[in-house]
């Protein structure tokens, strides 16, 4: 009986290396990415030019790193709306520090940025994990506070590339093995965080918390500590992105990264992480960030009005949410059906025995 079920299952999913690749959840995302890239290339071959691709990769990089942290947060069934504001505070403080210290070593700057991000992340963590405020309102509040703080600190000032040391901007311009250093950094972080979510106890605990906080607690997982950690992690990554932001764009003011939380959340949601928590992968979130970067670039290259871009992002979020919920619902229905069949079969055997 079990053997028969096994064969039936196997016949639906081909075994071996091909089957395993087919079953990878991110495959659909890669196909979507290739499809979009294909359409854009067919209309404007300029898309595949080296410099253009590099721009796409660079703009994907920053969103991608933020999306990694956001993916952890969402997997644990929380949400962080304050990411853009943390990036702004970190970027401005970094630039302000560098303005008068040209001879400072660049590592110090990274420490400052990451420290600022971590501190603000701890603020979120305290509110959500200790004070037990729902993440959505807590981070809506900190979004206002952090962004306001950035604006107050900056006081309407703009720090431009001319007063920043060249070694700082060199970080964004450096190339390793033909690709920008930042892209390698993003890939490295993606692999590291992907591994962390998939193969460490901490990561598995997050999935457990996301799919059922109650059973996770009964399984002995410290809910508050894990939730605190994901917010701190998200803050840390935002701090890092703040440093990179200044290096990449040169000019920093208080209103940068205004829609970053939207971009990061849409990348994570499009990447297949369930907004209810507990499912999806960090790799998917990274792919989501790349898809949006390609989409954005494509919209620009095709000459579509820049003003419509936000509407496209909104449609993409809604579309994926509906799509994934339909998938889940179908899977649930199939499971119910198979359970009903199984129970019917069992009832059949029992009545045969009775007779």
């Amino acid at each position, binding site marked *: 009986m079990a053997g028969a079920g096994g064969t039936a299952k196997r016949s639906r999913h081909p075994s071996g290396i091909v089957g395993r690749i087919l079953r990878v959840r991110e495959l659909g995302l890669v196909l979507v990415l290739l499809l979009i890239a294909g359409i854009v290339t067919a209309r404007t071959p300029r898309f595949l030019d080296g410099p253009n691709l590099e721009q796409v990769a660079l703009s994907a990089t920053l969103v991608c790193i933020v999306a990694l942290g956001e993916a952890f947060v969402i997997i644990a069934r929380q949400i962080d709306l304050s990411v853009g504001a943390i990036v702004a505070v970190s970027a401005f403080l970094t630039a302000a520090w560098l303005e008068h210290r040209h001879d400072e070593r660049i590592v110090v700057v990274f420490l400052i940025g990451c420290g600022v991000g971590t501190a603000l992340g701890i603020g979120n963590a305290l509110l959500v994990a200790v004070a*037990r405020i729902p993440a959505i309102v807590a981070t809506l509040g900190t979004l206002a506070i952090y962004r306001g703080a950035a604006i107050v600190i900056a006081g309407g000032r703009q720090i431009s590339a001319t007063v920043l040391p060249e070694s700082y901007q060199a970080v964004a311009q450096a190339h390793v093995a033909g690709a920008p250093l930042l892209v390698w950094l993003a890939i490295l972080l993606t692999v590291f965080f992907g591994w962390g979510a998939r193969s460490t106890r901490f990561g598995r605990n997050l999935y457990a918390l996301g799919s059922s906080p109650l059973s996770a607690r009964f399984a002995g997982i410290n809910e508050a500590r894990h939730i605190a950690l994901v917010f701190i992690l998200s803050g840390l990554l935002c701090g890092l992105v703040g440093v990179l932001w200044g290096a990449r764009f040169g000019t920093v003011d208080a209103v940068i990264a205004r829609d970053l939380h939207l971009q990061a959340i849409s990348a994570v949601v499009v990447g297949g992480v369930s907004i209810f928590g507990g499912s999806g992968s960090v790799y998917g979130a990274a792919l989501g960030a790349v898809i949006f970067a390609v989409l954005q670039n494509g919209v620009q290259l095709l000459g579509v*009005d820049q003003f419509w871009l936000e509407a496209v992002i909104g449609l993409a*979020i809604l579309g994926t949410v509906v799509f994934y919920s339909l998938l889940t619902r179908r899977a649930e229905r199939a499971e119910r059906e198979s359970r009903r069949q199984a129970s019917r079969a069992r009832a059949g055997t029992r009545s045969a025995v009775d007779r």
Partner: protein
Amino acid sequence: MKRAFRYLARWEVLLLVFLIGMFVYGRSVSPYFLTSSNISIAVAGFMPVAIVALAMTLIIVTGEIDISVGSITGLCVAFMAVCLEHGVPIGAAMPLGVIVGALAGLVNGLLVGYGGLPSLVVTIGTLALYRGVAQGILKERGISHFPEWYQSIGFGTVPGTPVPWSSIIFVVLLLGFSTFLHATRGGRVLYAIGNNREAARFSGIDVRRALLGVFVTSGVMCSVAAVVLTAYLASARSDAAAGLELPVITAVVLGGVDIFGGSGTMGGVVIALFVLAFVQNSLGLAGVTPEEQQIATGAVLILTLVVFGAVRLMRAEAAALRRAWRRRTRGLIVGGVTREKLRGG
């Protein structure tokens, strides 16, 4: 239930005391604070937030949330502006704007109510979508040639009094909303949904239709706010009402509505709206920039939630203590001495 009522009453009284304190502080900051013209300006400027907060109260009572209110308002503003550009008279553009708001709310409501999707993601998605459409149709243009009578909706006062016209609209809406929420079956349905959705469904409540209803209401209120806002600013731009969700949600939560749904009153929300309006106004008079006022709003939101969280925790602790006490005294009843005898001596 009685204890819950007493607690809520206390919270509203606390808010009132705070509001009075606000007036005292405001007076010490500036001699203009308590003048009727200043109060009139403070109230008129806050009316868009107040109107949207009425509908947000209904949504949060059901345990849902609508992040897209700012974008719906912006969309209605942009739509009315485009209508004006094409020569549609403002009298016809206003009802068209209301229809757009209702449609925007309908999309939210269908996805949340009938699609069974979480309101948080849906409205984050429509937040981007509606703002994007607003930018798409209005681009960077600004419209500012409104007729005199229209601007008076936002600015003007009832002749002979300092009462702004927009506050009359608000009071009428408020009466309607509080009657609905506190004195009709429909209002009780919302509390039932917010307390326990499954139980509400099994007791024969059409949860999906109720959710659709509150989101459409929210869309309509956003369009009313759009009318008041364009009249107040005397201009229409695609970034109008960006970030409106922050003061709206802050006011509702400060007013004592449980963010998890199921409890809260309109009265609390109204007092909270006035508190927020005068906090902003007195900060403005004290020379605090709008950005710093934004920090204050965020801080108010978080502080309120921390206080509520602490109170909830203490009540849970107290209930646990009471249960423990009862358990201990039950042993005495078995021994032949009832608790009443024990207390009576």
